[in-house]
Each structure stands twice: as C-alpha cells, then as structure tokens.
C-alpha cells in the first residue's frame, strides 16, 4: 500500500486542509500501519505527566542534609590530613635542631643556624647535580628527539586536560 503522502502528514503534525483530512480518513480506514501511527500520535498528544509520591521535597531535603554532612566530614578529614602532613614535615625538618636543643640547650641558637646552613648547602648541591645531569643528557640525546619528547609531553598534557574537562562537564540546556 502506498503510504505517501499520508505518512508524511501524520509525522509532520501540520494542520491539514479539509480535503487532505478527508483523504487521510479514507486512507486510515484501509491502512492499519497508518491507523496505528495516528493512534500513537493521539496517545502521545494526550500524554499527561506523572507526579512523584507526596513528600518528594522533604525526602530530598533529607538526602541533601546527608550529602552536606558527608561533605563536611570530607572537608574536616582533608584539613586534618593536611595539618598532619605539615606537622610531620616540620618535625622532620626541625628534628636535628630539637635534638641539639634537648642535649645542650645553651648551644641551640648556634645549632639552629648551622642546620639552616646545612639545608642551604644541600639544596645548592642538589641543584648543581641536576644541572650537570641535564647538561650530560642534552649531549647524549639529539635535538630532534628532545623536541619530539617535549611535543609528546605537551600533547599528552593537553589531552589529559581536555578529557578531564569533558568528563566533568555537565550539559548546558537551552
């Protein structure tokens, strides 16, 4: 059976002239496929929304309160972890000075100064070692390989950033 143009009329949902309407009705009586399309269209046009059970807002408030409490707990745990980390770092750095102070309190300012000098000298030594290492590496690796490696690193970083943005992005409706 030829469904055109009746199927287009039904799918288009445009207003029909009285002649088109008459032709469509005649076709619908003879064509079960188009009659089903018409029935589905009518059912869709008569659709009404389903409502949630009473108290939806109150139930959401309970869920929101639980989420906010979890957020506060996570925040508190984060702050505590950070504080513990900072404390551990301070203890690690100040441990030699504290030891010197405990063994001979009178020498403590001198001991603190000598420790600071030691830390500074260590830092300079690390820096010099790294610089020498990079110089040696530059001599061993050809320039084009270094450029390629830099580009790959930059590309990888860019892809990582884009994927993070895509994953965390929520759709923006109209």
């Amino acid at each position, binding site marked *: 059976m030829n469904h055109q143009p009746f199927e287009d009329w039904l799918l288009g949902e445009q207003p029909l002239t009285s002649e088109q309407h008459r032709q469509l009705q005649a076709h619908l009586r003879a064509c079960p496929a188009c009659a089903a399309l018409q029935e589905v269209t009518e*059912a869709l046009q008569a659709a009404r929304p389903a409502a949630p059970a009473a108290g939806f807002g109150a139930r959401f408030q309970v869920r929101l309160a639980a989420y906010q409490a979890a957020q506060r707990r996570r925040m508190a745990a984060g702050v505590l972890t950070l504080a513990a980390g900072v404390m551990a770092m301070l203890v690690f750095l100040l441990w030699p000075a504290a030891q010197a102070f405990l063994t001979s309190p009178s020498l403590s300012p001198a001991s603190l100064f000598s420790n600071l000098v030691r830390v500074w000298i260590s830092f300079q030594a690390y820096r010099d070692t790294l610089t020498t290492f990079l110089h040696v590496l530059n001599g061993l690796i050809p320039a084009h390989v270094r450029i390629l490696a830099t580009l790959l690193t930059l590309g990888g970083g860019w892809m990582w950033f884009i994927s993070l943005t895509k994953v965390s992005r929520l759709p923006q409706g109209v």
Partner: protein
Amino acid sequence: MNEEKVWVLQARNGDDQAFALLVETYQTPVYNLCYRMLGEAEAAEDAAQETFLKVYQNLSRYDAGRPFVTWLLSIAAHHCIDKLRRRRFSTFSIDEDEETSFELPDRHALDPEAETARREQQRRLQHLLQELEPLDRAAIILRYWHDASEIEIAESLGLSVPAVKSRLHRARKALAALWQEQELAAETQAERILYESPAI
C-alpha cells in the same frame, strides 16, 4: 528578573530555602521525565532526587542566560540515559509497581469511560516507550510530555536539529509498529477465545 532566576541566584549563594523552592516547583517535570525514561516509580524517584543533587552541586556552572528548566531536564535526561546504559543487560519488570506512580488527573474529564480508555492507552504507551532506544525515548518524552521544541531537544540531548527530527520520526514509526503488533496479537487472541481453538 523572574522568580525562578532569583531562586537560582539565591541558591548559588548558599540559600537552601531557595533551592527547596526550585525542587518544589520542578519536582513533577523531573520525576515525569525519569519515570517515562526508566519505567519504574522507585527508580524514577531515585533518579529525580539524584538529578536535583547534581543540580545543587553544579549550580555554579548554570548559564543564567538560558532557561533553567531545560538545563534541569537535560541533566535528568542524561542521568537516566546513563542509568539505562548501565543496566542494559539486566532485566526488570515495569508491571511490578505501576500502581505506585500517580498520573496527574485531567480536571476537565467528564466521561469516566473515556477516561478509563485514555488511561489504558497511556499504560500501553508507557509500556511501548521502554522498547525504544534511550536517546529516542528521551527525545519523544521531551517533545510530547514537556512540549520542548526540536531546537530545545537538540540542545538538551547534545544532538543536531536534523538528528532530533530523524529520531522523532523513527521513534514514532517504531511505536506505531509495536502498537500495531499488539493490536494484531490481541485480535488473534480474541479470535482464539471466540472459536475455542487450542493454542499451538
């Protein structure tokens, strides 16, 4: 500035009362979308609540130049599509808790018989909706239950306008084919009962 934008602005500044007003205002559209998408009242309630929670967490990303309701429904639709994809291989029945969802009554309905027929028609439609592919289903729901234009559907679902048109046509034809199949099956069954012919 309309009331809704004021509530959004207040909620962004940490006013939970303003957010509660948004929930009260939009609970039915969000729930309806989730119910039509997922086919179960309990799953729909859960999805609607999770949608509002996502909205609460991401209010700062909302573009105030666009209607809030379409942004909200877009989040709900994507949430349901994700849920459907996750449970693609698991089976469930939509008949179990049909009674727990409450359809808003038509205040103008005077004829109880017609209303019963309409309810039956809607029950069939809800059942057939579950046969559609999730994106097609979302497009149909946004178009017919939420009166969204093709442009709004396209932006909500991240599709082009021609793709939305094609999906709407395809989905309606698929629904019609299923509708016709059901009617044929019902007729065959009625004939079998009438002539008491044994089922093979």
